[in-house]
């Protein structure tokens, strides 16, 4: 597992793979249930006009989450 960064620090348009999650917290359980599991690849589509929330595409659909959650999700960038 090399070079993991937090999801919120990814550049717009970047593709990455989820690597690690906090074990507890409602938000993270729900994100898992929405199919964002360790190993899932996704693309950061855009940030809202005011920088927050963030929109990502995974498993063929679009999902938004706030920076406060994205800060704690460790991902590995696969392309810039």
């Amino acid at each position: 597992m090399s070079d993991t960064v937090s999801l919120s620090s990814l550049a717009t348009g970047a593709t990455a793979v989820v690597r690690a999650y906090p074990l507890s917290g409602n938000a993270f359980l729900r994100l898992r249930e929405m199919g964002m599991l360790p190993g899932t690849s996704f693309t950061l589509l855009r940030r809202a006009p005011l920088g927050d929330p963030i929109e990502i595409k995974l498993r063929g659909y679009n999902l938004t989450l706030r920076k406060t959650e994205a800060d704690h999700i460790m991902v590995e960038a696969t392309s810039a």
Partner: protein
Amino acid sequence: MNLPEHVKTPSRTPVYAFVGNPNCGKSTLFNALTGLKQKVGNYPGVTVERKVGTAYSQHGHPMTVIDLPGAYSLAARSPDEAVTRDVLLGRRADTQMPDRIVCIVDGSNLERNLYLVHQILDLGRPVILVVNMIDVATNAGLQIRFDHLEKELGIPVIPAQASRGHGLIELKLAMSRSDLPLPKHRWSVPAAIAPAVAELQASLQDADKKPPLIARAEALLLLTDPDPVRVTGSQPLSPRTAAILQQWTKRWQDDGTDWSGSLVGARYDAIGKLTAESVKSAASVAPQNVSDRIDAIVTHGFWGWAVLGSIMTLLFLSIFTLAEYPMGLIESAVAAMADGVKAAMPPGDLRDLITDGAIAGVGGVVIFLPQILILFFFIGLLESTGYMARAAFIMDRLMSRVGLNGKSFIPLLSSYACAIPGIMATRTIEDHKDRLVTILVAPFMSCSARLPVYLLMIAALVPSREVPILTKVGLMLLMYGLGTCGAFAFAWLFKRTLLKGEPPLMIMELPPYRLPRVKDVALQMAERGGIFLKRAGTIILAISIVLWALTAYPKAGEDATPSEQIAQSFAGQAGHVIEPAIEPLGFNWQIGIGLISSFAAREVFVSATSVVFNVEEDEENTEPLLQALRSATWPDGRPLFTPLVCLTLMVFYVFAMQCVSTVAIVKRETNSWRWPLFQIGYQTGFAWILCLIIYQTGTALGF
């Protein structure tokens, strides 16, 4: 397997539950199947919509269909999801546990949609799987092998395109079958968790008297859902089960086991295998899809705001201009009705009760029906196209400053037209506390019923006959601004004190843009309109009659003028009683009568004042009323309506809770009297304090 007899061969009306993710086309299917045979209401104890309809089987037998709120998982994260979970698990005493379940999934997003289905298959009841939106899936280059899904899951799988009615007959046929198979569904519970599942299942069967399969499903659920959302009306766990659950979670917590994560992971492993075998994707067809291209504009840093701004302007323009004509029609219909009664009945109290109490009271509220219908048409349209989620996405950051989330934006905005549809629109907010805060502050947004009051006061405020247009606009903007700031300030306050909670989640799907289904939008609009009319016909009718009686009794005598009568009446006496309370704000007992009668609806202030100040019949013309107001004085000869008093009165109308229809709707939406009463108290209290400050400071400064 010991199944209750009715599951195999339904002898009485079978109960079907419709379940699926939000935006999967569930409601379209439900509407198509049940048509107008639906009942909409609230679950007792919770403010989640309850939709039950009747469909007919192939042989004409009735089938009860419950449309459960959209859910992503049975591990509920909102009251909506909690209701879905509790109904499916038979935890609610007020709703019969469904015999059979129809799962609807979005074929273009099968993997995530199947997560909920996977949880439901555990319940061990007959399931029919409807794979909806196959057209979208085909366009995206997906080929679904329905026969394979059917074979693997052991249940009927029906391809459908609900928006065009495709698959409807097949679904009806499947629902009519008396021999629906049970799902054969194997997946391995992670080894670390298996003993806990077994122990919990045993306890649930023993101590909570659950049937075996439900007990197993519930055991799995309790483990994934360590902090469950509870809603009133659902039965709590037995102490023994709760203790076992606590033991296991504590042990895992100490070991650092990611138990819920591994359960979710195991489900997705099983789903992944299934979809890999049954969905073929033509990899070549993967262009940037249309939704993403629209979103590039709609959520753009500049164009996004422009689009939002234009849509909102259009919304307001249509509410105010399009509604004008039908509102005029209603007004004349109400007047004609009153005239009809006057012509048909001899003069007397009963006639006055009908015309001035019932017809005038209800008419004054029903007049807003066109505005409400137009607003709901727009909201329905924006929601079914998928734009609403984008508005929430754009606005989230701003709304989070006061502790709300983007979803509160539309309800608050709608409240500028009228707080009633605004409060009804809060249903899109999942988080209970966020929703309550939005409901509590919504009436601060200046609704259209305040306009007549503002206009009259602005006219009275400026002594010269012609009010300069800039002053008028400026004062109007000031009132709207005051209300908006008040709403945000109180939202901020409530989120920090009374309704403190975790910061709301903004984990939200942005559904693909779709063409709206006019039929569904219209149906929803009719539903909302119906709820509003029902209120007008009951609570508002009752209060209008009471208010009328307060102004009509006791009788002042035969020759009394209307203003003498009202001065003598209970309302007049009440005006005198509250005079000491409102005198520090610069208001006398006559204004007090206006304030009291405004409780029916704010714009009643105008007609009430014209009665109090004895303006002759012609209510349409504000000129005589204005002159009467200007010449009104205190007993010591001081003028009553000084500019300062007019301003204070306007501010009072911005903040005070003076709308019986809003109270009625808040009562309905929160399912208790506590919140509407709180709202009356805090809004009116705040209005009083603010007006006191304004009037006393103003007087001290010599205005």
